[in-house]
């Protein structure tokens, strides 16, 4: 009995609304719901009234009617018009969801059977937990080590599949401090149901305090630099003069001329591919088969660190603004304020991070 009461006490009918996208999508959701309820009611009333009024007892002989082209056109075209509103509204929100603001803070997520690994630009790392500041656009760049996963935060109404072999991304602006579910929503094997975690949205002060823990192994770019030395990349990719391989300084987000005459943008996807499978695209003026391929040799997390390092070599490019030296604006100089640790809205794991 008590058990039943507890179950009922926890009953929720609507998810928390904790991001800008969430309230926009909810408006559309309610529009769809109102239309659906109205249509269901219309059909229900139509069936009930006709069935009652023309039941055999009252109406023993049917009147044969051919149909009506006018009516057919009416009930084809009018639903279509309402649906066009749904279509346009949904497409507009979907477009916005595909275009992260340029000042978005970038966080990296790697999906792996069965956990989410999170890497922050300052070098901090977490598993199955994500901490984000309130009011700041956040862009997640996501990769998978194995099968398809899907990253979903119901309270933000955001979701994107995390497909192996490529970068996938989504973005959101959290609006309400709190502790929210994070789920994998693409079946990924035995412990799929345990590939869950928490998103903590912190107010500015709490976030600054949480972030001040920093990475003891340096920023993401510094971790990448260590790998760069460790794997011997630096012997061919020289910093300031041309070696056997292209100079990486100033490369990030610049067009690269390829040996086959085409041009690609040196973005995350290109750099990832060039690390894992260097022969896929050869820069003009360089030989293939010089660099060993790293596919299967290093983890997606290492790739993310290396990209962060390459990015840090091009400090002027806009999308590196959230790099190690330029922390998001919410990181105020009040970082060390002792009161921060007692301010509310910090989740269970709010102040602990693994390094």
């Amino acid at each position, binding site marked *: 009995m008590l058990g039943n009461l507890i179950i009922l006490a926890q009953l929720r009918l609507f998810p928390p609304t904790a991001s800008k996208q969430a309230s926009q999508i909810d408006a559309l959701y309610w529009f769809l719901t109102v239309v659906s309820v109205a249509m269901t009611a219309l059909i229900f009333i139509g069936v009930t009234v006709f069935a009652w009024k023309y039941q055999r007892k009252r109406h023993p002989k049917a009147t044969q*009617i051919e149909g009506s082209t006018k009516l057919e056109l009416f009930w084809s075209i009018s639903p279509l018009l309402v649906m066009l509103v749904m*279509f346009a509204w949904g497409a507009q929100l979907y477009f916005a*969801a595909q275009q992260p603001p340029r000042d978005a803070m970038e966080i990296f997520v790697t999906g792996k059977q069965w956990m989410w690994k999170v890497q922050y630009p300052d070098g901090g790392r977490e598993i199955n937990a994500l901490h984000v500041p309130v009011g700041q656009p956040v862009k997640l760049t996501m990769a998978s080590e194995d099968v398809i996963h899907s990253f979903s935060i119901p309270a933000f109404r955001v*979701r994107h599949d995390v*497909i192996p072999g490529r970068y996938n991304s989504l973005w959101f602006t959290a609006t309400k401090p709190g502790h929210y579910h994070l789920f994998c929503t693409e079946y990924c094997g035995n412990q799929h149901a345990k590939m869950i975690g928490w998103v903590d949205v912190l107010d500015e002060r709490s976030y600054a305090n949480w972030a001040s823990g920093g990475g003891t192994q340096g920023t993401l770019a510094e971790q990448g630099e260590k790998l760069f030395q460790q794997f011997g990349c630096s012997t061919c990719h020289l910093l300031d003069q041309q070696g056997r391989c292209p100079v990486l300084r100033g490369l990030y987000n610049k067009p690269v001329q390829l040996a086959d005459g085409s041009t690609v943008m040196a973005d995350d996807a290109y750099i990832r591919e060039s690390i894992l499978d260097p022969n896929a695209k050869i820069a003009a003026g360089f030989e293939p088969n010089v660099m060993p391929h790293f596919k299967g040799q290093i983890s997606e997390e290492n790739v993310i660190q290396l990209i962060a390092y390459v990015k840090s070599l091009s400090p002027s490019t806009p999308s590196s603004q959230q790099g190690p030296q330029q922390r998001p604006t919410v990181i105020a100089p009040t970082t060390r304020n002792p009161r921060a640790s007692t301010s509310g809205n910090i989740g269970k794991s709010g102040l602990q991070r693994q390094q």
Partner: protein
Amino acid sequence: MATLAQGTPEVVATEVNYLNVEHGWKSWLLTTDHKRIAILYLISITLMFFVGGAFAVLFRINLLEPEGLFAPETYNRLFSMHGIIMVFFFLVPSIPATLANFLIPIMVGAKDLAFPRVNLLSWYIYVLGAIFTLYAVIRGGVDTGWTFYAPYSSTYSNSYVLAAAFGVFTSGFSSILTGLNFIVTVHKMRAPGMTWSRLPLFVWSNYATGLIQVLGTPVIAITLLLLAFERIAHVGIFDPNIGGDPILFQHLFWFYSHPAVYIMILPGMGVISEIMACFSKKRIFGYNFVAFSSMAIAVLSFVVWGHHMFVTGESMYTSVAFSFLSFLVAVPSAIKVFNWTATMYKGSVSFDTPMLYAFGFIGLFTIGGLTGLYLATLATDVATHGTYFIVAHFHYVMVGGMVMAFMGGLHYWWPKMTGRMYPEAWSKFAALIVFIGFNLTFFPQFILGYLGMPRRYYSYPPEFQALNVLSTAGASILGIGYLIPMVYFIWSLKYGPKASKNPWGAAGLEWQIQSPPTTFNFDETPIVTEEAYNYGPLEEVVG
């Protein structure tokens, strides 16, 4: 029962019919009579339905507790096998291979389908496919979900993927052969005077289904072969680690599996058209529009598959195009619902069991269709993709729609197929139980879905428990609702009152021949002189 009494004197006890013309196993296993093959199919798919249903009851029990009651391996295999069996071995063949197999030749005035032996072959292929799949179940099952998404299925899963996939691959051929047989029969075997515009709408909808079966099914066969190729020979097709593309699998899979959704609903729509006309004693409102909408659905169904992939990162413009096309395919379905409703206007409506199922269909299919709009709309699809919202939506269409129609059709034509009446009171009671149980099972899942509960989770956060308990309670009621007809149908074979040739006073060729029909249906080829649903002369034209 009044309608039954009217017809009773016509029944002659010793008539020869397709059931008693020959006896013995051989006369069934080597038959080429479309009616006997329909019965073979009916027995086979009923068995598969109860196997798939038992899996569903088991995993619903698991979900009573947030931490789950079974091992995750068990749960994952249960939902996967439920999906595979219900989709490929129940829903796809459900109405086409049983009711349509029985009725299409009769409805067009023919002695049999165009290729009777191919018809028997299709049943054997179906059984072979079912055996492979059941072998996979007995060996320990498959845990990929019915969607077989790569690279999980091709590289990572340790379950019996190949056996199950081979079963599905095989059963596809039976589906193709059935579809082919219907198309040729409708084109070439119509009796004199049976013009296209006089065909019953049940024939139209199964003809449209046949087109999808023939054009779509080869693609799933190719997809599963490629999957097997990658799993056995490690050739990189879908797994990015060996040079493949996992999205390619989804394109190929949904290129069949979205049209397949219409294989699973169009025949049901045909049944509802027949039932609404018969129990309103009135011709279908807007015959041409209802017939044309089946064809429109068949064509459009091939260009909407991308709506399963809005969150995979397919190009924005691709998504927008697929979203738009998905709204278009909703229009013909809406046309049908409006026309069925309008058919009752100025009709003479009776509430026999088939009609109750038809009411259930209209209500549940309407909800299933309208919630589909949330998934055609890009932004709300992102919010609900991969959650219980999807599960609820497609069960409203597949179970609330197709299974309701199947039950309605089975009750409607049971007297024709078996020569016996089922018990009226029990059947009405069961229809009510099915309706209540269904809604209790699946309505809470819409709420769970928007709350964010992902599908295919063996455990879940505790705040989702109340709705899950409701859903499981509903599933047990629904299960009972399906068992009751099973019992009284079997009972009726021996104890049911004998059926007259036309117990419902229905129009249509199948009601002009004896119940059950003779082997060749008609003593002489009928000559058709009137349109379908001729329940009286036209009296009124609206608008």
